């Protein structure tokens, strides 16, 4: 059972989360009142602003820290963040685009075979954990990459990691392990 090198698996990135700072204090009330697409949450002390073009949602705090979610690629996240900063600039704040960092990337992937989760958990004892009472998937955490993979018995995977490269590496890492525990198809 050798892991095939040309794994033509579709890794689809569904969510990219990024943070950046504007290095200036923001008045949330002004943003809330003058923006078209904003939701003000006073109890949490933040404003949600949604952009249509790269479809992203941003949480804006008065300290100037902004978290940007919903993008489908790293470039898109950066573009959306810049757009957001430009909007804030137009509202009259002296924003600067500082410390942009992609914090989390979520991707899904599908194996062409089904997987025996109990066998898989047994083989990878401390790293993988499977609690059917709590969640139908087995969780596999790669400490070195800081990535988490959730493996479902149908062969679908959900991978989260700090950037897109890590996600790809994680999938490559886990493919041989899953290949060993695959369930032969009936057809």
């Amino acid at each position, binding site marked *: 059972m050798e892991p095939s090198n040309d794994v033509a698996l579709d890794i689809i990135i569904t969510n990219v989360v990024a943070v950046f700072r504007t*290095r200036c204090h923001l008045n949330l009330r002004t943003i*809330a*009142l*003058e*923006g*078209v*697409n904003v939701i*003000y949450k*006073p*109890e949490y002390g933040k404003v949600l602003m949604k*952009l249509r*073009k790269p479809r992203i949602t941003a949480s804006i705090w008065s300290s100037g820290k902004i978290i940007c979610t919903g993008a489908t690629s790293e470039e898109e996240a950066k*573009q959306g963040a*810049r*757009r957001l*900063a*430009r*909007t804030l*600039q*137009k*509202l009259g704040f002296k*924003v*600067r*685009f*500082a410390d*942009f960092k992609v914090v989390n990337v979520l991707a899904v992937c599908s194996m062409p075979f*089904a997987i*025996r*989760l*109990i066998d898989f*958990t*047994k083989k990878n*004892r*401390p790293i993988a*954990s*499977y*609690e*059917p*009472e*709590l969640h*139908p*998937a087995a969780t596999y955490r790669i400490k070195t990459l800081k990535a988490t993979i959730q493996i*479902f*018995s*149908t*062969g679908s995977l959900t991978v989260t990691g700090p950037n897109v490269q890590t996600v790809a590496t994680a999938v490559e890492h886990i493919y041989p392990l899953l290949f060993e525990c695959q*369930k032969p*198809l*009936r057809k």
Partner: protein
Amino acid sequence: MTSRTCKNCGCSEIDLDQARGNAVCTSCGSVLEDNIIVSEVQFVEGSGGISSAVGQFVSADGPVKAPVLGTGFHTSLGKESRAQTLQNGKRQIHNLGSQLQLNQHCLDTAFNFFKMVVSKHLTRGRKMAHVIAACLYLVCRTEGTPHMLLDLSDLLQVNVYILGKTFLLLARELCINSPAIDPCLYIPRFAHMLEFGDKTHEVSMTALRLLQRMKRDWMHTGRRPSGLCGAALLVAARMHEFRRTVKDVIGVVKVCEATLRKRLTEFEDTPTSQLTIDEFMRVDLEQECDPPSFTAGQKKVKLLQVHYLTLSRHGLACEISLYQDEIETELENSRPRLRGIYAVFSQASCSSPTEVDPEEDEELEAVAQHFNQDYICQVIQGQQQGGEGGGERGTEQSPTPPPPPKVGPSLNSILGPLPSAASLGLCESIQECFSVDKNSDDKSERGELDLDGIDDNEIERYILNDKEVRIKTDLWMKQNEEYLKEQKEKEDRIAKEKEQGTYKEKPKKTSKKREPIRASTAGEAIEKMLEQKKISSKINYDVLLDLNSKGGSPALPTTVDEPPPGAPGRKRLSRRKKQPNKTNLSLANTASIMGKRLRPLISSTPKKKRVTPNLTPAAALARPNISSPPTPTGPTLEENGPVAYDEAAREEEEEEEVEEPCVSALQLLGGNEYGCEAEEEEVF
């Protein structure tokens, strides 16, 4: 035992009388030992004539504690926190475990886990109840008892996922690999609860067989074991002619009706369901099925394919749409990726493929044409050269090259002249992109906003104009009236308090800034530290004070001054020697006294402030003065922290003998003790 030989006569024959507790020399008769401590088990007669052994059971682990008298309330005295935690945990484990009917061995194992958890500091930040439940569940899993996490969460009334989170964390930290749950474990338990009477065993066996079949049919991966058990038991019951409804089963198994029905449906889909009861008991099918969710996914894919096929059967329209899809995908792949301002245009072009595509394709085609023409010319020449030999072939082939060049110009004529600006503009933008990328790196380092790729017009749309702002403001104000009211009230309150001067900053939990202690001797440092820090019950003050020279203790009496006249609510503390009588206080009283003292002290602090500038230099003098009473730390520190002026005030006290005694909590607590010591010292 210790005495081998008599002291008087040297005789080694010594008689030990256990009853009297004597050791007597047999030769000279001198009593060598009296009141020998006996360590034998004694018996007393209880009510009803039952004799029982005298003694208490002491646990092997944990510190040796004094026998608990009365209610056992005073467990906090003299006991360390860790032991207390463990004892508490043990009690809770026993409580919970007995409700689950776990045997002693399991409870002990759970307690061992708990000890490990505590030693790894994993109890911090977690509710004790959660940790205990997780330990118990760990034991259940390792022992293989039929207890579910749901049972534990029922008992504790806690969300099962929260318990699960704690459980997973503990298992990972303690490196305990618990075996996966086998639904077969739960069958006997549920069967018992469903009350099958004599046939319970048979029903259980049938259910087990069903479960094993389900396992092989891949129904059990990723599912709650209790759901499968429920389905298996329901079918088994029906097979043995017991009328158990779905409701009975779900009451026992704790899944919802929908889940149970779904499991039954899935089982129905397997080929095993087609067998009769007898056949099932005898025969075991070889085939294995795919997991149900997998088949569901496959079904969807199939549906899509069927959809396309049916579409294609409907003729031209569908064919065209299919081809359109294909063309579009091809075009997307072949189109050059544009960045910059024109990215907007390129994306917009997706929606209107008819107009823009040909333009861009035009460019490509133009290039292609160019190359083609060259190639075709060469081919034609070649062929013409070769064609002289085979004239017919040449004539056949020669028509073929000309058509391609015709295609180019024909498109041109159909679509009209190319907008040259666009094609030029695109080239420019491509060049811009390459140059701009380098710029953007620099800009991001400086933190400036890179306007590349941002369309200002679009962003203008995101911002409302004045009229809209006004309308929105009104709406928002109306919507959030309550919140705004609250905020206003709060501000008013704060303003009022500020005027009154009683405004306290809301607990922002800023750590109290403490000045570094300036002391010349260890004793002084200890005093100052005691003042600053809150009085703890865990410190043995005697030892601390003994650290200092003994010369310090006689100085104590002098500093306790008469209480100032007319100070309301102050406890009049007399001189040192009378203190032991009056200040025989327990902790509770101390606290209340401290409370009473707090308020007067606040008002008196302004006096102290006046004194400060004069006496701060004096304060720096070395004084082995333990006695300077550590004032009740709370209010004085809130005003200002420095130790210096407290000492100054004290000095002032001594000099003026007017100031309040500022009796320390230390004195109140341990005053009698070392007052006594002082007395003792004086006596001895």
